[in-house]
């Protein structure tokens, strides 16, 4: 068999999950080529770590990994230190790719979500390139069989790829927030946040507060990504799979949440902005009021004012942010209110039943049912199948003909079964 065959086959194997992941990331109306380009650039992020490995091989005195292993006796500590180094190197490499794409094509990064998604693709590119080497090694090593190749393929395509994507994605989110730090800082200032530390640093360094906030955000994202990456690797190295699985599951839920926020999808006006038709001092009064009412939870009023103000000042990103955040908060508020109503009504029903009277089922209005279904759907997508199941059952008690509840109940039941099976398996591995 040609020596190229395993390499080509490993590349094809590694490419399969990429196609699926890109389909998951891509939404209708978005340019898929952006994702593919960033993915391809992301594959280059493996070069710096490989150069380092080559350097360590050639100049053993530089090899930090063997230095750690020879000086640190405790296995867990050695694994931690090694993986902190791995986390730093790999995340920095992916980070550079995201920054290069932004530098060359700032037009790709017009929303926080686009920064997040492009970072996911950079992470995917890295994981793809890394997977080729892993698959190739397993394939060509005579001590491994096809079963090993299959299990490596499944684990790395699902968890390792997802892990790399979410570490990069978290950085991407903070990078996006940092990119629009000027508007976001102003928005936060109107909301009443002080940024005392950032202001102090800005004073010392002679920078603008928002520039310091931007650097803080980038650093926060990078440190989070590195920390999670290190924790994920340590968990795998010490053969405790459950923590790594939990990191991926919770990380994915967090990314899914970030991807659907209105503020994340907000299209920031960049370049030349149209001027406001309202006097600056008067507009400041309105902005102050927006901040005040946001703090007081008057989200509907905030949305209405923002709509009127945007008619006067259409490119004002701060007003757009107020509107988007109010929309997000309003939805959350609605969810909680509706849920509270469901529980309260259920309690009433139980009391009525306990009192001997025939409990009358009060149908949940269609509007409220829609809200509950949306929440269930969100929980389902976040992997909170048990909560989705509980609510589906309660909703069906109230609205027995709810088709949406029936569909979600079935889907959540299937997933919950799978999750339990998976938990049992991972427990088996851990034990």
């Amino acid at each position, binding site marked *: 068999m040609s020596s190229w065959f395993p390499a080509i086959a490993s590349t094809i194997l590694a490419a399969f999950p990429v196609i699926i992941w890109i389909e998951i990331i891509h939404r209708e109306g978005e340019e898929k080529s952006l994702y593919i380009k960033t993915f391809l650039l992301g594959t280059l992020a493996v070069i710096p770590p490989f150069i380092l490995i080559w350097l360590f091989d050639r100049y053993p005195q530089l090899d930090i990994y063997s230095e750690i292993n020879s000086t640190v006796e405790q296995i867990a500590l050695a694994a931690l230190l090694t993986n902190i180094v791995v986390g730093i190197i790999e995340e920095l490499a992916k980070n550079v790719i995201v920054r290069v794409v932004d530098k060359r094509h700032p037009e790709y990064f017009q929303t926080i979500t686009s920064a997040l998604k492009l970072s996911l693709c950079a992470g995917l590119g890295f994981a793809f390139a890394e997977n080729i080497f892993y698959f190739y090694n397993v394939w060509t090593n005579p001590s491994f069989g096809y079963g090993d190749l299959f299990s490596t393929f499944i684990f790395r395509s699902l968890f390792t790829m997802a892990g790399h994507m979410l570490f990069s994605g978290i950085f991407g989110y903070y990078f996006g927030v940092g990119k629009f730090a000027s508007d976001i800082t102003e928005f936060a200032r109107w909301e009443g946040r002080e940024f005392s530390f950032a202001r102090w640093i800005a004073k010392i360094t002679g920078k603008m507060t928002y520039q310091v906030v931007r650097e803080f955000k980038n650093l926060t994202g990078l440190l989070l990504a590195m920390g999670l990456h290190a924790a994920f690797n340590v968990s795998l190295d010490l053969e405790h799979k459950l923590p790594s699985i939990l990191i991926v599951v919770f990380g994915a839920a967090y990314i899914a949440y970030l991807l659907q926020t209105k503020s994340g999808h907000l299209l920031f006006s960049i370049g030349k902005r149209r001027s406001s038709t*309202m*006097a600056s*001092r*008067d507009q400041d*009064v*309105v*902005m*102050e*009021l927006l*901040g*005040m*009412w946001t703090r007081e939870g008057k989200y509907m*009023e905030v949305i*209405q*004012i923002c709509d*009127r*103000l945007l008619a*006067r000042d259409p490119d004002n990103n701060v007003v757009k942010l107020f509107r988007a955040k109010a929309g997000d908060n309003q939805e959350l508020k609605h969810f909680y209110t509706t849920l509270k109503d469901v529980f309260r009504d259920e309690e009433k029903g139980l009391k009525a039943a306990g009192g001997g009277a025939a409990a009358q089922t009060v149908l949940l209005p269609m509007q409220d049912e829609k809200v509950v279904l949306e929440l269930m759907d969100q929980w389902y997508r976040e992997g909170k199948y048990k909560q989705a199941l509980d609510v589906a059952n309660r909703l069906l008690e109230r609205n027995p003909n709810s088709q949406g509840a029936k569909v979600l109940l079935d889907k959540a039941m299937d997933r919950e079964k799978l999750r339990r099976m998976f938990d049992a398996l991972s427990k088996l591995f851990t034990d």
Partner: protein
Amino acid sequence: MAQITITVEDIASSVPDKKIKLLKFAGQLDESNVDDKAKEIYSIIDAVPQGLFLIFDFEKLEYMNSKSIGYLTDWYSKLSEKKGGILIANARPNITDILQVVGITQLVPCVGSVDEAKIAVMK
């Protein structure tokens, strides 16, 4: 500290269940004085159990901050509960502009003169 004076006058009402007061604002309503002045207005509102209409003459009001707009909506809510209301008269263009963007003009009518406001209340 910005200066603000509010003078209060009773206006004779031809409608028996409507009580009308004219409040003339002069100066600037800002962070330094708005809380104190708001208390005075709350006490006026609390003193009348039903059907109180306040006409705010903003002819000499140069500036109002966000907090005063917040109070304005609260006074409106309190008076509406008691079958009363607020009317704004003579507001300067910049203040009308703010009130329009904030949406207060949809709740509180803004008219060109105190006389117009009186007619509107007594309808």
